[in-house]
């Protein structure tokens, strides 16, 4: 039997850049094929070619043994290829059932038949192991995980034989990831093929069958066994060099004075009674699941949400609740969780993103010279090795890791004393990750007080001096990171969360 899909020598040229420069990919029916590569390696372009959104300039695609050209997304859809993008392309204002049948609504004489649509949706959701999602519920009211399930139901409604998933786990907590894996296993058991894209190597070990690695628009390794290939080999293939996925050592310098003091901080309905202090040079880590309240806590410390109880002091001075400008004046900075929507002006040049909070420093009586902030901002981005080095490029043209460095550069230029980092390595490739770790360490060594939030427990343990475990809006455990290990933190983080599978008992 021929493979379900083969792609050979795919080339895609955009003005000024060769996004794909000879990519090969083989996918068999019933397998989970993992696609690995750093940001900018060409993964997104490849799946757009596969989905019919881009036409390749060169190369051959064979589908079920016959050569094909997917000229439009509809052609790929008809052939049985469904893509679940990172930003889900669902309509939040429609119901679950309407989203499942979107574009192919069951109808008679032009009138839609909502009952039939609901039956289709209900059957598919049951097949996906989520019968608890009501077909009539407005989609926007579901969690990210629930929306992803609906997205998969939509793919199945079209009888997809190949489902492409672009970083599906990025928005899920560990339990939801396990649910996703169960669904994927059921799909592949029925002969559906899955192309799975993720930055997390451990997930690929767990769910993947074979791995294809992309680098700089080329396939550098094809059909590696997902479980047996050593991690070091995979990283070497992705980055072209071998790096230790390791955290830089702690600085030997003793900690300085207390800089940030949070006392009894709370916000009705979100979290309560949060107290901690951070000294100059110290890194405090907040570990917790998505929805545990960890992001809400640091956004409230920063004043982006208004505290309903407690106080935040920077070097003894109490900050006005709910005022970001007050926090920034006191020397705080936040690298927010959603880099694109909360952190950056995507269309503006790098230097203007960097100088935004520090702008008055470059102005005289409110007047700025022509790009008078370019040199100072450019010096900081160069110091952080932001690539490409031209600080006048729009931020949108940079990779995820470099965009994160731009946000960090902003607070470096501002000269902040307290840095709040919310998921600083989300969507950042392995190489840039180590650079960001080293940078965080260096900032601490320079005397900045740092609060770090991350879903990745090894990251918190590897960087933080002290770890606070957050669960359901409360700090349930505080300990030096040296006294904790990954298993212990995971236990604490999940303690009262119901075990896997119980959700299915309802309905």
């Amino acid at each position, binding site marked *: 039997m021929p493979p379900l899909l083969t792609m050979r020598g795919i080339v895609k040229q955009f003005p000024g850049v060769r996004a794909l420069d000879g990519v090969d990919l083989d996918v068999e029916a019933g397998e989970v094929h993992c696609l690995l590569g750093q940001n900018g390696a060409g993964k997104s372009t490849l799946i757009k070619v596969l989905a019919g959104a881009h036409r390749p300039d060169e190369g051959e695609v064979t589908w079920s043994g016959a050569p094909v050209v997917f000229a439009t997304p509809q052609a790929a859809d008809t052939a049985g290829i469904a893509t679940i993008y990172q930003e889900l392309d669902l309509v939040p204002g429609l119901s679950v059932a309407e989203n499942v049948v979107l574009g192919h609504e069951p109808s008679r004489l032009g009138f839609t038949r909502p009952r039939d649509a609901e039956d289709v949706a209900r059957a598919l959701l049951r097949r996906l192991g989520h019968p608890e999602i009501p077909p009539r519920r407005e989609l926007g009211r579901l969690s990210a995980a629930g929306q992803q399930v609906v997205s998969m139901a939509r793919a199945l409604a079209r009888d997809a034989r190949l489902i492409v998933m672009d970083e599906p786990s990025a928005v899920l907590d560990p339990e939801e990831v396990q649910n996703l894996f169960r669904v994927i296993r059921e799909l592949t058991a029925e002969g559906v093929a899955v192309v799975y894209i993720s930055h997390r190597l451990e997930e690929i070990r767990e769910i993947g069958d074979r791995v294809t690695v992309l680098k700089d628009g080329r396939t550098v390794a094809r059909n590696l066994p997902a479980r047996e290939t050593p991690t070091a080999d995979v990283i070497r293939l992705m980055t072209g060099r071998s790096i230790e996925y390791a955290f830089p050592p702690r600085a030997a310098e003793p900690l300085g004075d207390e800089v940030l003091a949070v006392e009894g901080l709370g916000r009705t309905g979100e979290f309560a009674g949060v107290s901690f202090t951070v000294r100059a040079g110290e890194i405090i880590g907040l570990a917790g699941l998505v929805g545990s309240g960890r992001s809400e806590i640091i956004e409230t410390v920063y004043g982006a949400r208004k505290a309903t109880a407690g106080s935040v002091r920077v070097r003894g001075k109490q900050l006005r609740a709910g005022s970001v400008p007050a926090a920034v004046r006191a020397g705080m900075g936040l690298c927010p969780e959603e880099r694109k929507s909360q952190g950056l002006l995507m269309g503006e040049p790098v230097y203007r993103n960097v100088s935004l909070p520090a702008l008055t420093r470059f102005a005289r009586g409110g007047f700025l010279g022509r790009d008078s902030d370019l040199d100072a901002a450019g010096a900081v981005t160069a*110091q952080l090795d932001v690539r490409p080095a031209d600080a006048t490029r729009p931020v949108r043209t940079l990779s995820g890791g470099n965009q994160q460095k731009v946000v960090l550069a902003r607070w470096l230029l501002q000269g902040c004393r307290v840095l709040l980092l919310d998921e600083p390595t989300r969507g950042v490739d392995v190489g840039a990750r180590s650079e960001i770790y080293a940078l965080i360490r260096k900032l601490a060594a320079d005397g900045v007080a740092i609060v770090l939030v991350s879903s990745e427990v090894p990251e918190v343990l590897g960087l933080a001096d002290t770890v606070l475990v957050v669960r359901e809006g409360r700090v349930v455990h505080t300990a030096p990171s040296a006294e904790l290990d990954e298993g212990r933190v995971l236990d604490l983080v999940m303690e009262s969360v119901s075990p896997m599978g119980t959700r299915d008992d309802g309905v």
Partner: protein
Amino acid sequence: MTVSDAQADSQAGPDRVALDKGGALDKGAVPAADERIRVERAARAAEPNGSQLSRLLDSGAGRNLGLVAVLVLLGIVGVLSADTFLTTSNLLTILTQASIIGVITVGVTFVIIGGGIDLSVGKVMALSSVWATTVATQSYGPVVMIFCALAVGMGAGLVNGLLIAYGRIVPFIVTLAMLISAQGLAEQISGRRSQIVTDRVIAGIANTRFLGIPLLIYIFAVVVIVGWVVLNRTTFGRRTFAIGGNPEAARLAGLDVRRHTILLYVVSGLCCGVAAIMIASLTTTGSSTHGTLYELDAIAAVIIGGTLLSGGRGTLVGSILGVLVFTTITNLFILNNLATEVQNIAKGAIIVIAVLVQARARRTSAAS
């Protein structure tokens, strides 16, 4: 090296960039921070004229090249169709007619780049003109009249801004409500009558000329220049782009988004106040019927000037060129005794064509 080569290089990998542009730099060596900037600068400066042309096209003036072309085209049509078109007096007439709506457009450009919209400008101007020309206000003399017009405009803008920033009502609704109530208040104050400007200083503004050019055109020019400087050379302007482009990112970067939003509407109101003095002088009346549909003319000019209606991107020069295009069309129709119905059809077509052309240009530049 062509532009696309340079871009391909910088995206192909940092090592190659250093190698190509630094020349002597070793592939393995990481150049010092300032050295790298210097090299990039030198590389950019060394690029031949082709890329300078493309940079010019990408700059504010360049992006408006299309509008300049339209203006030239209109000029040619004018010269061919009416022999009075290219006379000094006719050109000054065009500029005088453009001056009032032009001043209003400056304010609207600020609001739209800042991510808002202001539908109330025409009637706020009418209200200002009425309030400044009541018998009582006129009795205090020209300084008080001017102060009154500016204060009423800024006050209306302040109310708009407060309701939008703190009341969290969308700008479209707030300013629509302001349009309606400003009209009502203007009618109530004036008793639906045109109030004659008896003050000689105010009435004389429109008749005054320096070096043969009407004072109204000077006022227009000063407002545009001040507006340009504020938008492009001050922290206020830079923050306006930031808040319009991504308000949440601007807020988390420490900007006071609410205060800034209020100030944007106050700026728009201030421009209405200035325009109110100008129209009161030009027509020698203050009237609630002034400025009808000015908001749509101003928004149309801003849009064909290339400013994104969603905010964060735009140029003041483009907006002013937009005003001049519309005013010139009106002038051509009058000179050729054509009906205003046809004129409006032409204006509508120009808006659509301008937006289509810009969308295409943006796609091309985004793809590179």
